[in-house]
């Protein structure tokens, strides 16, 4: 490491850390506001709330029918995770192992849903889904959410599969394993770390995916983040604390999976794509 010890350099470094500190401070204060507000009896025009209570969690749970919303959320998210795993891993295997005509076009097809923002393709997609009758249903939401997650799994898994020696597969073939048995007994065990990492990221992204769910969800297929949006949108009807309690419940459901995901992946991978794909854990 090169050390620059001039006064200007020190000032510059200090300025950078001040900016980082300011950002992190505001971010944490914002989260703390929501957390504190959800536990407060009354908080108007003072630094801290008058008193603390947990009653808003009960209120929010009943008023927003959170039990129902949470069940739907997890049903949708787990269906999306399983289906994107099946579709994504098989396609990633083909992309990693074969060179074929049109591969670059396919790669573009897999990249586009990640580059185009959800709201842009979500509106034509919602139109098609509503006209085919799946809009507003459970499967409509699942289909819409699969659009960015399948390519995501493919792009994360390709480098993972590429680093497995093809000789291992060739050996299994020599001993008479078919494609299916090869997959189950040889590839799957070696790919588990990568599959786990990519599916956890899919899980985190789907819990937080607002736009696609919002555009395609009906009253009975709302996920937590959409329910939260509607309650913030209609704020004034309910107490702020009640909305904040719901926000905290949402935060907890997201962060539990995030913390779990961070045991397997690097934070930069949550925004990154193929380029920053995981270094395989071997």
């Amino acid at each position: 490491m090169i050390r620059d010890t001039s006064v200007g350099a020190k000032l510059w470094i200090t300025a950078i850390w001040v900016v980082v500190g300011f950002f992190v401070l505001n971010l944490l204060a914002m989260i703390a506001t929501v957390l504190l507000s959800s536990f407060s009896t009354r908080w108007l025009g003072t630094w801290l709330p008058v008193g603390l209570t947990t009653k808003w969690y009960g209120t929010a749970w009943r008023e927003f029918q959170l039990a129902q919303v949470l069940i739907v959320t997890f049903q949708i998210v787990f269906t999306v995770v399983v289906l994107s795993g099946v579709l994504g891993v098989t396609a990633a295997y083909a992309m990693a192992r074969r060179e074929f005509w049109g591969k670059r076009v396919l790669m573009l097809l897999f990249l586009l849903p990640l580059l185009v923002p959800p709201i842009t393709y979500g509106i034509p997609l919602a139109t098609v889904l509503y006209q085919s009758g799946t809009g507003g249903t459970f499967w409509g939401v699942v289909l819409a959410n699969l659009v960015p997650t399948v390519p995501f799994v493919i792009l994360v898994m390709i480098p993972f599969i590429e680093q497995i020696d093809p000789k291992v597969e060739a050996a299994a073939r020599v001993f008479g394993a078919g494609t299916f048995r090869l997959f189950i007994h040889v590839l799957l065990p070696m790919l588990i770390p990568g599959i786990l990492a990519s599916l956890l990221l899919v899980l985190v992204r789907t819990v937080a995916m607002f736009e696609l769910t919002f555009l395609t969800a009906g009253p009975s297929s709302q996920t937590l983040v959409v329910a939260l949006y509607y309650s913030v949108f209609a704020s004034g009807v309910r107490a702020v604390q009640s909305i904040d309690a719901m926000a905290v419940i949402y935060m907890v459901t997201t962060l539990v999976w995030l913390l779990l995901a961070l045991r397997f992946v690097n934070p930069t991978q949550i925004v990154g794509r193929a380029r920053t794909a995981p270094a395989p854990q071997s």
Partner: protein
Amino acid sequence: MSALVEHDYSRISLQQRLARRGFDGVTLLALPAVVFLLAVFVYPFIYGLALSFMPKAGGFFANYQTFFSDPYLYNTIATTLWLALPVTLISIAMALPIAFRVRLMRRQRLLTTILVLPVTLGTVLVAQGLLNYLGPQGWFSRTLLLFHIIDAPLKLTNNYWGVFASLIITGFPFTFLLTLSYVSGIDPALEQAAATHGANSWQRFRFVFWPLLVPGLAIAFCLSFVQAYAVFPSAILLGAPAGPTRVISIAAYQAAFEQYDYSMASAIAMIMAAVQLVIVVAILGLRNLFYRGSTAGGKG
């Protein structure tokens, strides 16, 4: 018998010919995902494009004529750009120097974990948090009042600045984490070589890092811009969706789900995609004027 054998030969040779081009059972594994994306991503897009030329009333281009003749509609492009471009530029300008410091840290994990929070929590939660935090009675205004920086609480919600703040809170970490992955991808040996030859820190940045970083930064810029451009929930919750923060996604949403004019909504979505494409292509075009190649050190 001989016909059967012949038939068999031709089948095998077709299979072999395909296999030589890389098509065999393994390649077919990609088929389900491809079919799925064609049906749920490509088809709706083409359908939307076709639908946009079939307006409820008027000729072929009626939707586009309506859009570009109604200031309430065409102004949304400028409104969106006026939010997305400053946010992206500020995020990149902040992310670059910070990434340069953080790359030298040994324990980056804590900082990157904190920064990944707003990206994971999403815009709806950030909007609700900022409504509390930046509101007239929130801690932000209170702190500024305490230090006598301002005399009256700042109005930071339900206007441009609320949306701006929410875009920075979710956009900056995204840009930063992308930039960090590019910056740490550059071999430190290059910098050491430059330092050995007497380059000061500015020269090392300007003549060693900058040319290597431009391609990555262009990608980071495009991805961050596209995200900010698609701002939707926070523009409604935290902004003034009828006026200063009526962004293009709100116009598209209202056309589809309030006026039930799917044709117009598709037209707005296509215009939205086209504007993004123009900016992304422009940025990537600029990138091609710079060096592209290996960021690794070594001979060669």
